[in-house]
């Protein structure tokens, strides 16, 4: 019996809080708790990676990579015959290498423009994936699942995998912080100190494929981009230091996961309306972004009314500090 059945939004949190202190082993967690854990951990991990993506302007590369992942998953399924963790991991890393390698080859060796190379490779790999999938499985069910995610089919193993990946992302965030920082913001200094910008970019793409591969079961490959990009962009509106950006983005993701899972249960209990939990989480992230924009607009408007001797306070700041 699922203790969350017929719980409302606040009731969900009350139950979750109570059960938190029972310290149940992972196998006895209910589907709601598994969803919550996976989405929260995933949100934190991808926010940490996504912060670097946003400041390095590699969002579209991440989008291309998420398309290329399909062929990796299909290859893992076809060659090793399983969609479980080690096979998927190899498939994903391979797909990541192929995608970013092809794009790099097209832009550097063939001298195609960035956007054309990205569009070309992402659509090629994605259609290759769909064709391979059709040949292997003769139905598009897995395809739909890969694009859409299947948050209701998660189980305890997924929590472990996501936890590992989030741990890896967190450690990388700490250990390689300076390398990422310097290669993102001052490539000249990075070169003179011996940090390779290209290799840090490739490492970041590897982290993105690692994150996407555990995310695809929960949210699907397209929405991974949302989890990667939206929280850091929201956080970017409020803070100006990369460390703060990463922490705030992780917080925003965590918040969206908590509210999203509870809201999904609430809609089911109260309105008998089953909705895609991952869809709710991404829409919530969008709401946070728009809300932040609005809040900042209001703040500017209020500040614009505070004038010093008839001069806008923000104008003075603008002139003095060029911000």
């Amino acid at each position, binding site marked *: 019996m699922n203790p969350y059945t017929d719980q409302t939004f606040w009731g969900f949190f009350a139950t979750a809080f109570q059960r938190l202190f029972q310290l149940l082993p992972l196998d006895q967690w209910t589907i709601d708790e598994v969803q919550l854990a996976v989405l929260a951990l995933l949100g934190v991990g991808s926010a940490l990676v996504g912060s670097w993506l946003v400041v390095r302007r590699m969002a579209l590369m991440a989008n291309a990579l998420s398309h290329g992942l399909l062929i990796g998953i299909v290859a893992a399924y076809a060659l090793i015959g399983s969609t479980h963790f080690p096979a998927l991991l190899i498939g994903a890393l391979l797909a990541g290498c192929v995608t970013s390698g092809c794009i790099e080859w097209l832009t550097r060796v063939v001298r195609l423009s960035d956007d054309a190379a990205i569009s070309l490779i992402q659509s090629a790999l994605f259609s290759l994936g769909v064709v391979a999938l059709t040949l292997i499985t003769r139905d598009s069910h897995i395809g739909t699942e890969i694009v859409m995610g299947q948050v209701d089919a998660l189980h305890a193993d997924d929590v472990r995998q996501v936890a590992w990946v989030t741990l890896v992302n967190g450690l990388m965030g700490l250990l390689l912080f300076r390398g990422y920082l310097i290669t993102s913001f001052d490539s000249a200094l990075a070169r003179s100190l011996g940090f390779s910008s290209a290799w840090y970019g490739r490492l970041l793409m590897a982290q993105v494929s690692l994150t996407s591969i555990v995310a695809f079961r929960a949210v699907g490959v397209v929405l991974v981009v949302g989890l990667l*990009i939206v929280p850091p*962009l929201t956080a970017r509106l409020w803070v100006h230091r990369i460390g703060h950006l990463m922490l705030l983005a992780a917080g925003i993701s965590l918040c969206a996961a908590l509210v999203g899972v509870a809201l999904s249960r609430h809609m089911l209990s109260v309105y008998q309306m*089953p909705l895609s939990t991952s869809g709710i989480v991404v829409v919530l992230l969008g709401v946070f972004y728009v809300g932040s924009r609005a809040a900042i607009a209001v703040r500017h408007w209020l500040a614009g009314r505070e004038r010093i001797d008839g001069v806008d306070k923000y104008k003075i700041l603008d002139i003095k500090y060029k911000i």
Partner: protein
Amino acid sequence: MSNLWDLLIDPLLRGPTWGTILVCGALAAVGVLAYVRRTTQVGELISHAAYPGVVVGLLLTGSPAGAIAGAALSALIALGCMGRLTRRGLSPDNALALVLALFFGAGLLLASRAQFLDPRLFRQVQTYLYGQAPSMTDQHILLYAALALTVLLAIAICFKELQLWSFDPTQARLNGLGSRPLELMFIGLLTLSVLASLKAVGIVLATAMLVAPAVAARQFNNRLDRMLLWGALIGMVSGWLGLYCSLYGLPAGPMVALISVAIALASLLVAPRNGLLVRLGRMARFRRQCIDENILKAIWRAGDGMTTLAQLHNCVGGRLLSLRWALLRLRRHGWLTARIGLTLDGAQRAAVIVRRHRLWEAYLVTSLGVGIERVHPSAEEMEHILTPEVEAQLVQLLRDPRHDPHNQPIPQVPR
């Protein structure tokens, strides 16, 4: 099994075939414009952002027309959002990824609602993801012919303005050409053709049709009008071939995309002027020519003193194997005797190279005032590049010198 031509006339198959061909042509023509403006990813945005509109349109009206109208509306809203965000200082790629992910997320949310309300409708929604070409009928031919004609006419009428606006926006503004109406028209055409392609290639794959034919067309042309024609043609051919594959049980939309990408990659590799393999071949030929000429020069300089391969290797450097290979090549040309020695032809060839080397040194010193000690490396490179015409000009300019700056004689070569 029917062959390629039957596809075009068979009463059951001609609907999907001509529909796909026309849609792909229109998409590819607009794609050429997007490619030269470096905004191919906007197609990606339109195709993904149309998803929530498709779901809402189907839920509300239950008809394909409703789906298309909803798709158009949500795509335009997404484009508006992106424009607003970029004007507020977000970088275009971040803005694009943000809007794309949020709209697709909203689409998923709505689709999960549709799945619960009406599973049959949900399956219909899914067909818009990957396209469903085989379900097109003769009516679609008319519809898509009208679309292709609209796109073609619009581009043809505004061709001059579009060209100026794409390549030189500043000049376009100076000529009193507002960028706003053109941009709106471009976006309108883009949205129209991406949405029309939903049925043929599906939401997820429209990007391929936008970018791949344009990339291929660019390899063979450097004029916008020809690029447009070639692009449309390549798009139509890949639509046709892709549909042919669908007869063998492969999904039509992805196959169309794959074929167009294959054409693009092939032309990136082997196009006559810009192809990668062609460029690499040209480089390899030049490198080989340099090796050959250096060998000839070394033997010519040494006169009778060069008898063994080891001596030659000392003089020229490089790997021994490639040296042996080069000697074989030179003998076949008739420039080298069976042992290490020059034939008459070879001697003349070597003399030409040494002559160019010394002429260039003389030119650098007398005409450009470069120091004598610094001219040799430059001449080592230029001796392989100078043409007879340039040589004649140098001779005229320097009044046919007999000695180079190092006081070495400049060999005279009989014509």
